[in-house]
């Protein structure tokens, strides 16, 4: 009985270690492929894309989990700003282009070009460089 239990525990352990190794290897290979642009990968981070879409759609709630923690007052002020800009101005995004990026250690940089038309009908074309670390956008400029 003890022998069978030990056999099952050992087998489950081996299987779990293998699963962990497979997950880590697959993750590392994925990052390498994304960064190197192999197989047509753009290298774009899902976090950076989500952040850009949240910005363009003026929806601070959608990006609250992927940027550094802010105080409640900062978050409230941001929601106020987003509400007033939604009601008073109409900004029409014309294009969102991922230009490229790179990763060094725990930090990755993702650069976008944004083309939008403001309420006066003037087109604005500007870049945004996002620094992503630990699953969050830690810098945007």
């Amino acid at each position, binding site marked *: 009985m003890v022998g069978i239990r030990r056999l099952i525990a050992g*087998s489950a352990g081996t299987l779990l270690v293998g699963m962990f190794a497979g997950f880590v290897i697959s993750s590392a290979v994925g990052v390498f492929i994304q960064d190197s642009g192999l197989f047509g990968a753009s290298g774009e981070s899902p976090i950076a894309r*989500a952040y850009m879409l949240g910005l363009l759609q003026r929806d601070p709630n959608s990006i609250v989990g992927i940027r550094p923690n802010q105080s409640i007052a900062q978050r409230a002020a941001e929601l106020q700003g987003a509400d007033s800009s939604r009601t008073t101005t109409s900004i029409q995004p014309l294009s969102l282009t991922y230009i490229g990026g790179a990763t060094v250690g725990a930090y990755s940089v993702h*650069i976008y070009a944004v083309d939008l038309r403001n309420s006066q009908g003037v087109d604005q074309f500007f870049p945004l460089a996002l620094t992503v670390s630990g699953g969050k956008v830690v810098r945007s400029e």
Partner: protein
Amino acid sequence: MNETRAVVTLSLFAIGILTGVVLHTFVDKGPAENPYPALPKVEEPRAAHDVVAAIGADDAQSLSRLVDSTMLNDLDMALQPITDVRTTKFVGAVESEGRLLSAYVVTGKTTEGIDFVVGFVLRIANDQVVGVN
């Protein structure tokens, strides 16, 4: 008996690896769909290339001739916190109605000696660098 055990253990490990890879494909979702059109990439503009070459070569004299003082200040801000540039990499350029953005990634060390990466973009108009973001 020992050989059988080794084969079973290795097989279990291999099955585990495969399961981990399959699990990763379900967990790791790619970027969300971009609802906006994307602009086509263009070649690196010559003027931007010269500026970034001067940065990469740590050639302050050439850089001082290529861009004005306002842009040097903006460049300084964009490179923060890197003080010692090690590599520069052109990642792409896009154009919209004659306005061109050329993007770069710079790696280097901070004053504390920590490896860091920053991105910056040069604005080009009429074959000249007219801004730094």
